[in-house]
């Protein structure tokens, strides 16, 4: 039982440390960090004391604790990925709009400054 606790706490704490490091190094956009901070917090708690989860499960009337853990984990991943794709769609549209605008602006620029150095810059 002791070794099991050690393994889970090492996994939990190192994941949390990695996430916090990423946040500190500004490798992650601040809005996304809230989600990952919650995840790392949960990882530390359940890593250090896995029995804590078993005691929660009792209140839900689930006979086999890991099933609830998997259900919750998959549910959270599902929500996260769904929102990621919604976000990605927004980005895709934004990129397309920008690409279109760049071409329109470039045409206007070419028209206005029909000089050699601008042409060179375009090519």
């Amino acid at each position: 039982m002791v070794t099991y606790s050690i393994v889970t706490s090492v996994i939990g704490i190192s994941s949390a440390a990695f996430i916090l490091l990423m946040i500190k190094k500004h490798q992650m956009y601040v809005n996304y960090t809230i989600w990952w901070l919650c995840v790392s917090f949960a990882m530390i708690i359940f890593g250090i004391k896995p029995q804590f989860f078993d005691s929660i499960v009792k209140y839900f009337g689930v006979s086999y604790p890991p099933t609830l853990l998997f259900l919750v984990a998959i549910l959270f991943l599902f929500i996260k990925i769904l929102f990621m794709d919604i976000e990605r769609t927004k980005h895709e549209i934004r990129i397309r709009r920008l690409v279109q605008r760049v071409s329109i602006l470039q045409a206007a620029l070419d028209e206005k400054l029909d000089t050699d150095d601008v042409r060179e810059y375009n090519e």
Partner: protein
Amino acid sequence: MNKVLVIIPAHNEEALLPKTLQELKQLNAYDVLVVDDNSYDNTLKYLKSENVKHLSLPCQLGAWGATQTGLRYGVSQKKYDYFIAFDADGQHDSMTIDLLLYSLIHDEADLVIGACPERGSLCRKIAWRLLRLTSGLNVKDLTSGFRAYSFRAASLLSSAQASGLDYQDVGVLCFLRKAGLRIKEVEVCMRPRSEGKSRIFCSWFSVVQYMVYSLLLAVSNFRIR
């Protein structure tokens, strides 16, 4: 006199674009704008050397993305009343542009499709029927790239909402129907492609991809005629 802008989306069309442009030039009735969809052949070079009015996209956006760029440009110029989408590969006859414009000028529709229901293989006809059935659109030639847009249709279609679309057919038509605009079809002759292929109906993979995409869009936009 109404000002008309002919928008030609072009992706690697160096072989056929010059002839198409020459035909339009001979008519001398419309402004022409070529939207180069990030071609990797000499299309852009040709446009620059011939001093054709053009926009060049830094990334490939597909036929609809290129057409929309032209619409955005045309709407922002504030001097055009009607917009024509025209294929670069010489499929469409420039003499028939007036047929499409006629319905717009007489305010019979906001979007006129130059339709040629006879063309196409059995596969294409099945695809059309399926899409018509699932979307509830009463349009015979769904995939035609030959279209005339009123200013109102063009400004609606230059919105960011329409930038999420990948093809100009089902998505664009449903978008305009939702906005309450009138869609009309006019039958025109189309020439068979002498060279080059349809961008959609060129391989089984892209056909399947296109059909899944369009069916999803059609079903989600279903409306009883």
